[in-house]
């Protein structure tokens, strides 16, 4: 039977063989094939505006704060796409519910965190909703990735009056643009109805004129 030496040698050779096959050849071959066959997708599904400028990825959410745009969900990382993640706060978390204030003792760190209470108030205030109006749940919850590119149709439509006022157009026209951008379930079956925030904002710019970028 095999001696200790051969056992080790075979294991060492198998280590190298599998490392080269699955750790180098396989991913490099897939990279080559992906770049040849699906280069747009493989490089991040970038979106280009009518001026030919890259404005982001179709798949990655970005921060929107201007009145003329549909805003995305709150994000645990502020839509910093070089990182990702959620709050990981539990259903019994006071921080998740009521938020935390910035600690004046540590001026170099910003501890402030908007809880669901503050997020709901802000959503009502921004969109001039009544003080007891029901707020869409995705407007006060942070996604798992922090980069959620979508909002629910309800959350997008609730912002139509504010967008219409900011763009000085009729609210029904804004709502119509948003409705046109509602994506159905995939294959009519999978996932949820949703609106891609970057796509709807590009559509709003196309319809009513770009307001921020030249």
């Amino acid at each position, binding site marked *: 039977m095999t001696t200790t030496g051969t056992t080790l040698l075979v294991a060492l050779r198998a280590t190298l063989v599998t490392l080269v096959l699955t750790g180098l050849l396989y991913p490099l071959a897939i990279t080559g094939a992906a770049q040849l066959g699906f280069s747009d997708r493989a490089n991040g599904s970038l979106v280009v505006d009518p001026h030919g400028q*890259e404005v982001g*990825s179709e798949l990655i959410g970005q921060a929107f704060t201007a009145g003329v745009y549909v805003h995305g969900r709150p994000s645990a990382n502020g839509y910093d796409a070089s990182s990702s993640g959620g709050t990981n706060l539990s259903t019994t978390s006071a921080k998740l519910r009521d938020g935390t204030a910035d600690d004046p003792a540590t001026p170099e760190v910003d501890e402030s965190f908007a809880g669901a209470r503050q997020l709901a108030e802000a959503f009502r205030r921004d969109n001039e909703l009544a003080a007891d109006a*029901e707020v869409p*749940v995705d407007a006060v919850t942070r996604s798992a990735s922090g980069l959620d590119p979508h909002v629910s149709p309800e959350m997008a439509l609730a912002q139509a009056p504010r967008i219409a006022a900011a763009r000085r157009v009729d609210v029904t026209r804004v709502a119509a643009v948003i409705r046109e951008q509602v994506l159905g379930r995939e294959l009519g079956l999978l996932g*949820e109805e949703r609106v891609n925030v970057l796509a709807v904002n590009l559509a709003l710019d196309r319809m009513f004129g770009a307001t921020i970028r030249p």
Partner: protein
Amino acid sequence: MTASGWLQIAVFVLVIFALTRPLGAYLHRVFEGDRQPLPRVLGRVERGLLRLCGLRAPAEQTWVQYAVSMLVFSVLGLLVTYVIQRAQGVLPLNPQHLAGVPAPLAFNTASSFATNTNWQAYVPETTMSNLTQMAGLAWHNFTSAAVGIGVALVVARGLTRQPGPDGNRGVGNFYVDLIRGLVYVLVPMSAVVALVLVSQGVVQTLDASHAVTTLEGGKQVLALGPVASQEAIKMLGTNGGGFFNANSAHPFENPSALTNLLEMVLIFAIPAALTYTYGRMARDQRQGWVLFAAMSVLFLAGVAVCYWAEAHPNAALHDLQIASAPGNLEGKEVRFGVANSALFATVTTDASCGAVNAMHDSFTPLGGMVPMVNISLGEVVFGGVGAGLYGILVFVVLTVFIAGLMVGRTPEYLGKKIEGREMKLAMLYILVFPLIILGLTAWAAVASYGTSSLNNAGPHGLSELLYAFISGAGNNGSAFAGLNANTDWWNVVLGLTMLAGRFLMIVPALAIGGAMLRKKTVIPGPGTFPTTGWLFAALLVAVIVIVGALTFFPALSLGPVVEHFQAQHGEVM
């Protein structure tokens, strides 16, 4: 809960059911057949790779030789991945110029990937170079999965093969199983899946990032990398280690509900198929389907509870006038919604995958308890690639033994007597797991270096500790991710936990295979307890649930159960 949500769960179940037989038959042909598929192409590759390993005519090994080969290969792999991480600063394919990984974290990560756990104490985007991800980590995604299949085959061969004339036939050859698993199954399937994923938006490039100016004029840096190639084997090998921190919740890992379905199917594909493969090996398909049925019952129970719980609003949002119909969306993506998040969480913890498409830490208390219970049951609900089959076969041995005690006869399984040695090994396998988890959770809960890593207070904090050790010992790798596990204590202790949870369970499993192989088959008599049919399936489910409940119910009551009642009363802390 909605009809659409249940329909999507039903679609998933049907796809798995439809795949089980063809894939199971294919696996049988690959590992146990006389003639492997595509002999002119893949057969040559197989023989060529074995020759490169120095094996011209690989012989059958005894279980001890098999175990030694497996351990030496795994330890070498662990060392290589440790070195790659430490040295990544001077190695190529490091476009971000990342420095070497600190020693405790590198040990933790190497243990994590060598054991098919894929626990991630690091933030991938800012810690691991492309080379480390590809050659250090995804490499283990392939090999640890192939090792798992091999171990399952040894146990299955022990139970189903007849001893040779000298009474001591081998259990297979470790390297043949390993190379066949890669050449015929994992590499070709991953390659196809990777390209499908790319076509749907999963990125695949050697660039680390791309900067864009957003619509509002801000700057956004998109993290990129060779993601799709890793994503495919991450799911297919039930590994679960994300290229990005947010794992399969990240749109570049899992861009749509369609890729989400594909990824979930990949997790269960091989574990479900192996039950069929096992039926073939036993020359009685009912022996495989009875395992499939028992697993399905436990799976459906888990997904129903998790979906029901997550369809409830988040208790922290109570009284704030928030729409309640969509359910708990904290830590979930809009494109997946509650149904697909609950389904994914159940699938990934039934199997030893550990990928997540939603943050389990932000699940409702009972919704978050389902993943914990799934792993605590030993990940035998389809389970990890290979690990699920050998795990449930150990429970089958236990069930047959208990049934034998009830009727007062020597227990038999597939015509082979179950005796003292096998029972001791089975009990060792079953006891190692809770011993590690409960012992270390208790330690962490009373030590400042344990509790200082918590992200949540009160019972949920205990759940974060408990989940970490359940996940580590169960080689799952998912987490209540609020826990800051990147401290020296956590890295070292969890690294050891993962090694113990893998190898202290694999060795007894291999030993059971070896012990059973030596036994001659006896013809079943009127007193033989049949191990097919619903009665046996029900008994098997009961044994799994009772063992799991007796061991973990006290700990779970202090964590998620208390938290549930807190949440019911709107308490926050």
